[in-house]
Structures are given as structure tokens and as C-alpha cells.
């Protein structure tokens, strides 16, 4: 379930990679605008031959379609091989509605968007049920559907093709000339790419990155993964539809051979070669793939063959494509010069310093305190009653009733396999209990998805390190915070980062990692990453925090830090439930202990009681089997 491959790289590489990342991510808004503006005027420039003007317009349309594909693929991790079909869909709708039914361009456009949206949403539902690789093949199958629909619908008329597609009119003027229409295309693509840029930066951009880095963890910190993926697929496909809408009037005539299967393949190549997950990737890729073959004067087969080989090599040696070349180049350059990277030294020092305990733990006023309301005081923070779940016939939880009082630090103990993590998983929505209820401050949480549970104020950490490895510490905390505020759309439109800065800085100070806020989290030591996990749970308004073995494998100094942080947060009003095997720490930290064995609660009381409880001792130390009646086995 929580499987995460270990990326073994040195701190230097991490810092530098992060910088490359940062450069792409935060490519200055004005920089992007300049590039886009340049594209805009491309096809309408003076002095171009008519063919070159057509080529420039076509390139722009491909940029838009590739940009949409990049959104899906590079950001949300969905491989679509049907982008060419959505492109074709746009063209066909425009062509059929105009030629056969004499609709205006604009109405036909609206219709194409509506149809495209429906198709995309239906496809997305099926896609999200399949894993990545099978879903990619599934989109190939979609192409078949499109091809069938196209031949079926278009052959409605006498001719196989649809000639005579007119260019649209704007404010009463028909954009008939190539230059005028080219400018129109430029404007539309510019706006389209602006939208793409907006979606891939700010809150949405961070959410996508989180999904790409560690999907289960993203889900657990409030990112509605399914929703984001569907939105990416929807908008990515619609980008292709719009591009297709503009294509039909550009060429004036389409027929079933206008949109071969190779179109989808070309879009994929554009994104991979250009650089997936990078804004410039689509632009570079589309330009290269469209223009280069013209220069080579080669047939489609030849250049696709060559591009195919380049893509294979790229996946081996340059997975970030052309846009990522700056990193590859920098790495080689650095290796050639053999000079230690000066820039990473401060990070390493900071890591070492923080590892040795860091600044003293203080409770900062900016740290959010939960005011226990009248209501909250009278009812438990959490109630689980009759919780049961079984895996493969074995009851992992058997009618478990555990209440967590507001403001306490509850220790949850039990031998391996007694159900501790399972109970937490049931409460936080990762596992669905067969029976029983989970009430948080009186509200029913049973069976809720992890991201909903997080947003309701229940946070958790995991046994194994689960974070967004290549993102900075600051960004990790930001992601944990952002999804609990506002709606998906308000987060797209407004980036209120500055409002949250104080809160994040407060938590960073609490755990003593302020100096490391800009370091990629993967470059921190194991114990520090565990502190970050705790920080992620503390940021935001969660009033109940589950810690699953927070001290496993952590050095003693940092354990002290963890303990102090928990105490401070608890004094500020947070309730904790801690699963730990480090008995000495637990007995000292917790006010109450619940012990599980074989999915049942066997003890509940203060540490002193538990330590002398015979049943608990038996559960941990074991029982003698000599007396057990042995049957025939």
C-alpha cells in the first residue's frame, strides 16, 4: 500500500535538482508572458511566405494541444494517447455543423466543447479505474472509437471529406486572410497557454506535484487526487478540442485521413522530447517536432522513426527532455570542473546543525491554538464504537471501542499484528471498516476518504517516511495546509500563500527546522524527515493527530525534540494518539494508554497501571503453549 521507491542521491544533487525544478516551476511570470507573446505574433509576422505562415499557425495549434497533454501527463501523471482524437473531434464538429447545418463558428465551437467535455469525463471515469499503463492503452482504444465515429458521421454526405470550411467572423469582420486568422490563432493559443500556466503553478501546480511525487501521501494531506486528475484530463483534452476547432478553418477541408493515429503519437513525442512537467516543454516540443521535419524534407515515417529512437534514448538519458537539458548540462559541467558545489555547503551545514538538536523549542504565538469550545469539552474528541474489519478471514479489529478525550495524549500499544495501525487506517479513511462508527467531535467520519478526513481536522503520520521528496520542506508544509482552505476553484484563482506564511514559519520554528525550509526534504536526515512529518500534521487546523511510530529509527537527540514538540502542541490544545514501541518514551509522554491484542482492547488506563497489568505483560511476553490441547493439527 505505501510503497515508495528510494531515490538515492547526494545532498548536492538534490539541491541542484531542486533548483532546476524551481527554475521551471517558478519561471518568472513575466518571462513566460514574454515567450507566449512572441508566439502570438508568429503567424502574423510580415514577410512570411504563405506556406511558412501556415506552418507557424499549425505549430501554434500543436503547442496548445501539446500543452494540454503536458498538463495531463507531466503534471497529473495520466498518459493519454487520444489527444489526436480530441483534436480531430474539434475539427469534425466544426466542419459538420458548419457545412451540413450551417451553424456559425462560435456556436459550433461551443458545441464541440460541450461534446468534448462529456467524452472526456466519461473516459476519465474509466481511466481512473485502471492503473497508469493500462489506462494508456485504453486511450489508444478510444482512438478506435473516434475513428469509427468519424467515418460513420462524415460519410453522411456524398463526398468523403468536408470541404468549404469557412473562417470565423469577429465583430462583423470575417478573418479571411491568412495573416488575420493567424493572429486570431495566436491570441487564442496565448490565452489557452495562460490558462495552462495558471493551472500548473500556484496551488494547483503544487497539488499536481504532490500527486506526482507521492499519491497516497497527497491523498492523506487533503489533496483530492481523483478530482485533480479528472480536471487535468478534462482541461487537457479540451485544449486539444479548441486547437482542433481552429484547425478546420485553417485548412478548409478535412476528411478521415486528416487525423491519423500518428497524430496522437506525435503529441506524445512533443511532450516527452520537449520536457514533461515543464511549462516550456510543450512549446519546445511542438516547435521541434513540427518544424524540424520540414527542414529535413523527410516523410512522416522517416522523422517519426528518428524521433522514436530519440525518445527511447531520452527516456534512458534525459528523462526531463530538452527543457530539462539545463540540469543535465549543469551536471556534466560540474563533474568536468570537479569543484565542490559551494551552494550546497550551507545546506549540509544546516542539516548537521539541526540534527544535533537545533534551536530550543518555543511555543510561538503564531502557532495555531485550538480553543476548546463548550461543546467540545463535553464530548470526546474521537469516538470509535464497534469498529471491525477483517483481512483475508483474519479479524484485524474486533468490535473495538476506543474514545479519545479532548486534549489528551493517548498511547496505543500492542504486539505486532494487534491492529494498531489498522485502527488508525480505519479512522483516517485508508481502510473501510466492515462495521462500526467513527465520530469526530460528534460528526460521523466513518468510511470517509483520506482527504476528507484531513480536511475535517484529523491528521496523521505514517510508519514509513512518506513525504514529497523532491519538494522543499516549506512546500511540503504548504501542500498540507493549502487543501484545507477554500474550494478547488478558489485555490486556482487566488494564491494566498502569504496568508499562510506565518503559520508555516511558526511550525518550522517549533520543530527547529527554520534553516532548512528551502532544502528538498529528501536531503534531510531520517530523523529530520520524521520531524517534518510531524510538522505536516501540525500545520493547519487539525485538532486530532495520529502519530504512527514517530520515533522509530530516530536518534536520541531528535527524539527529545519530537517529544518536546508534542508536549508544546498538546499544551496549545492539540489531541494526540501515538503508536510507539519505544516504551520508555511512551510511558513518560502519555496520560493514558490503550492496549490492543488480536484486534481487541485488553487494557485501558494510566501508564503505571498498564505497566503492572498481567494481561498486558502476557500479550507482550507471550503465553506458554504446553498446556494447549493439540488436535490432529
Amino acid at each position, binding site marked *: 500500500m505505501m510503497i515508495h521507491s*528510494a531515490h*538515492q542521491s547526494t545532498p548536492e544533487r538534490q539541491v541542484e535538482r531542486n533548483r532546476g525544478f524551481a527554475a521551471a516551476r517558478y519561471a518568472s511570470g513575466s518571462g513566460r508572458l514574454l515567450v507566449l507573446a512572441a508566439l502570438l505574433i508568429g503567424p502574423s509576422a510580415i514577410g512570411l511566405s504563405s506556406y511558412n505562415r501556415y506552418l507557424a499557425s499549425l505549430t501554434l495549434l500543436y503547442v496548445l494541444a501539446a500543452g494540454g497533454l503536458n498538463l495531463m501527463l507531466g503534471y497529473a501523471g495520466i498518459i493519454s494517447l487520444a489527444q489526436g482524437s480530441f483534436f480531430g473531434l474539434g475539427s469534425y464538429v466544426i466542419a459538420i455543423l458548419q457545412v451540413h447545418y450551417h451553424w456559425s463558428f462560435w456556436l459550433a465551437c461551443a458545441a464541440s466543447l460541450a461534446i468534448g467535455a462529456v467524452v472526456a469525463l466519461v473516459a476519465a471515469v474509466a481511466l481512473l479505474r485502471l492503473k497508469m499503463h493500462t489506462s494508456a492503452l485504453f486511450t489508444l482504444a478510444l482512438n478506435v472509437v473516434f475513428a469509427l465515429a468519424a467515418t460513420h458521421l462524415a460519410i453522411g454526405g456524398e463526398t468523403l471529406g468536408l470541404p468549404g470550411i469557412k473562417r470565423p467572423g469577429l465583430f462583423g469582420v470575417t478573418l479571411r486572410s491568412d495573416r488575420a486568422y493567424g493572429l486570431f490563432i495566436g491570441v487564442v493559443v496565448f490565452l489557452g497557454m495562460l490558462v495552462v500556466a495558471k493551472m500548473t503553478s500556484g496551488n494547483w501546480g503544487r497539488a499536481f506535484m504532490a500527486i506526482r511525487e507521492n499519491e497516497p501521501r497527497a491523498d492523506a494531506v487533503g489533496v483530492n487526487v481523483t478530482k485533480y486528475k479528472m480536471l487535468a484530463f478534462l482541461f487537457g483534452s479540451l485544449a486539444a478540442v479548441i486547437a482542433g476547432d481552429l484547425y478546420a478553418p485553417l485548412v478548409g477541408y478535412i476528411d478521415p485521413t486528416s487525423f491519423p493515429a500518428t497524430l496522437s503519437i506525435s503529441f506524445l513525442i512533443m511532450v516527452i522530447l520537449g520536457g514533461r512537467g515543464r511549462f516550456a516543454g510543450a512549446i519546445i516540443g511542438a516547435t521541434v517536432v513540427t518544424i524540424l521535419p520540414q527542414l529535413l524534407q523527410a516523410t512522416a515515417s522517416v522523422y517519426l522513426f528518428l524521433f522514436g529512437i530519440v525518445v527511447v534514448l531520452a527516456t534512458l538519458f534525459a528523462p526531463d527532455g530538452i527543457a530539462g537539458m539545463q540540469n543535465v548540462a549543469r551536471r556534466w559541467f560540474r563533474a568536468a570542473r570537479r569543484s565542490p558545489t559551494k551552494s550546497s555547503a550551507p545546506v549540509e551545514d544546516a542539516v548537521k546543525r539541526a540534527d544535533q538538536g537545533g534551536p530550543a523549542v518555543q511555543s510561538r504565538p503564531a502557532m495555531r491554538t485550538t480553543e476548546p469550545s463548550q461543546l467540545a469539552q463535553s464530548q470526546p474528541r474521537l469516538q470509535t464504537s464497534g469498529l471491525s474489519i477483517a483481512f483475508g478471514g*483474519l479479524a484485524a479489529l474486533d468490535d473495538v471501542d476506543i474514545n479519545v478525550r479532548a486534549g489528551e495524549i493517548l498511547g496505543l500499544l500492542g*504486539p*505486532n*499484528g494487534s491492529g494498531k495501525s489498522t485502527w488508525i487506517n480505519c479512522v483516517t479513511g485508508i481502510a473501510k471498516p466492515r462495521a462500526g462508527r467513527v465520530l469526530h467531535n460528534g460528526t460521523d467520519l466513518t468510511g470517509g476518504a483520506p482527504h476528507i478526513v484531513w480536511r475535517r481536522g484529523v491528521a496523521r503520520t505514517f510508519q514509513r*517516511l512518506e513525504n514529497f521528496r523532491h519538494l522543499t520542506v516549506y512546500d511540503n508544509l504548504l501542500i498540507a495546509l493549502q487543501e484545507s482552505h477554500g474550494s478547488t476553484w478558489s485555490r486556482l484563482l487566488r494564491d494566498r500563500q502569504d496568508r499562510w506564511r506565518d503559520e508555516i514559519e511558526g511550525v518550522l520554528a517549533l520543530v527547529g527546522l527554520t534553516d532548512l525550509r528551502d532544502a528538498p526534504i529528501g536531503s534531510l*536526515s*531520517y530523523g529530520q524527515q520524521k520531524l517534518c512529518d510531524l510538522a505536516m500534521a501540525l500545520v493547519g487546523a487539525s485538532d486530532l493527530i495520529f502519530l504512527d*511510530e514517530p520515533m*522509530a*529509527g530516530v536518534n536520541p537527540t531528535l527524539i527529545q525534540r519530537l517529544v518536546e514538540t508534542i508536549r508544546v502542541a498538546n499544551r496549545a490544545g492539540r489531541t494526540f494518539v501515538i503508536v510507539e*514501541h*519505544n*516504551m*520508555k*518514551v*511512551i*510511558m513518560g509522554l502519555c496520560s493514558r494508554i490503550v492496549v490492543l491484542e488480536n484486534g481487541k482492547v485488553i487494557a485501558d488506563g494510566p501508564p503505571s497501571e*498498564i*505497566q503492572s497489568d498481567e494481561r*498486558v*505483560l*502476557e500479550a*507482550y*511476553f*507471550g*503465553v*506458554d*503453549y*504446553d498446556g*494447549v*490441547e*493439540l*488436535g*490432529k*493439527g
Partner: protein
Amino acid sequence: MTTLLTVENLSAGYERGAETLHEVSLEVRTGQVVSIIGPNGAGKSTVLRAIFGMTPWRTGSIHFEGAEVLGVRTHEMLSRGVAFIAQGQNIFPELSVARNLEIGAYIRKDRHTVRQDIEAVYEKYPALVPLRNRVAGLLSGGQVRMLEIARALLVRPKLILVDEPSLGLSPLMSAQVFKDLGALKKEGISILIVEQNAEASLRMSEYAYVIEGGRNGMQGPADRMRTDAAVRMAYLGA
């Protein structure tokens, strides 16, 4: 009794910077059952995995039958006569019991004697005979464990490493498992067992080591460890 396995100052781990074991030492003699007990999360399983060559990195020294085996990979440990029964269910769910046994002898080249050994194993565990053709995924927990023990015997082991055999089993099944393991001692097979149920494990052992926080804790003859109050209290952090 000669020394079969010596582990000296073994440090091992899975993630860089997060060592699970720190300079652990222990010893197993021929025909001896040795228990590794201690609080959970203390690295007990890692000891077995490190010995068997399954941890990404380790330092220190491990001697088996006098030869240094620190750098030796899993399949060679099997050839040398070390078998590993890992935690949880480790079978091939869609293969029959017979096939699961067959694959257990994969590293052996002497096909004919393997067949004889398989027959011997059926004699030793007659409960497996009616299950020969049943798909392993349908077996109960206790039957799976019996299959795993039988399978381990097919490499003609001198030492069997067993990791938490009673995990997930009912008391009845656990009792049977411990009985079966104990019976192996009579054939001169040594067993190094990590077990949560310290009580049961100590009853069938000669010697025991406590591993706490990835390091050696107390050690001594199993009987003495079983009745020592200090050992019990350590389990609960007191």
C-alpha cells in the same frame, strides 16, 4: 557441540542513515535452538534478514561453518545450508502445495534425491498429503506455516532462520508450529528464531538473546531468561 554461526558486531539497515542494528553479536551451535526476543520494533527481524543477505547494507562479520559470509548473497546462503522462513505468508498462491515444495528445492541440482526428500517431507508432515494438489492460496494460516517449514527442509539446511512464526496464527496453530520446529532439533538442525511470544519461544530454546533498540541486551540460557523478572519488565519499558 560445535559453533555453527557466529555474528560479530553486525550493523545493518535499510535506509541510509537509519541503521536498524548496531554492533549486534550472537552465536548458534549445532543442534541448538536460539531465541531472539525483545520489544517490538527493536530490529529483531533485521538480524535474520541481515544474516541471510537480505539487507541493503551491513558491516561487521558473520561466520557460518567457519567461513566468512558477510558478503554472500541469498542463493549462496541457501546452498551452504541456511534456510529462511520469513514473516507472514510466503508462498506462491496459485501453485499447488506440491509445486510450492518443488520450487523450494530450486537451488539443488540433484533432481533424484530431491524427489526422495520430498517424499520424506510428506512422511514427516502427513497433514500435507491430502493437500498435495490444493492451490496454496486456499490453505489456512497453520497449513501455510507447515508448508513453509516443509519447504525449508528441502534445501537440507543445517540452520533455519525463523521470523515470527506465530504471527497471525491462532494459539492452537501456533502450538503446532512450535511443536514442529522443536522436533527438528532432534535431527541436528539448528534454529535461530525471532518470536514475539517470548514465553513459548524460550521454552523450546537452549539460549536466548534480548535485542533492544537494535543492540544486544541481556543474554543467557533460555530457562534463566524465561524466569528472570528483569527481562519481562524490559518489555514494558519499566
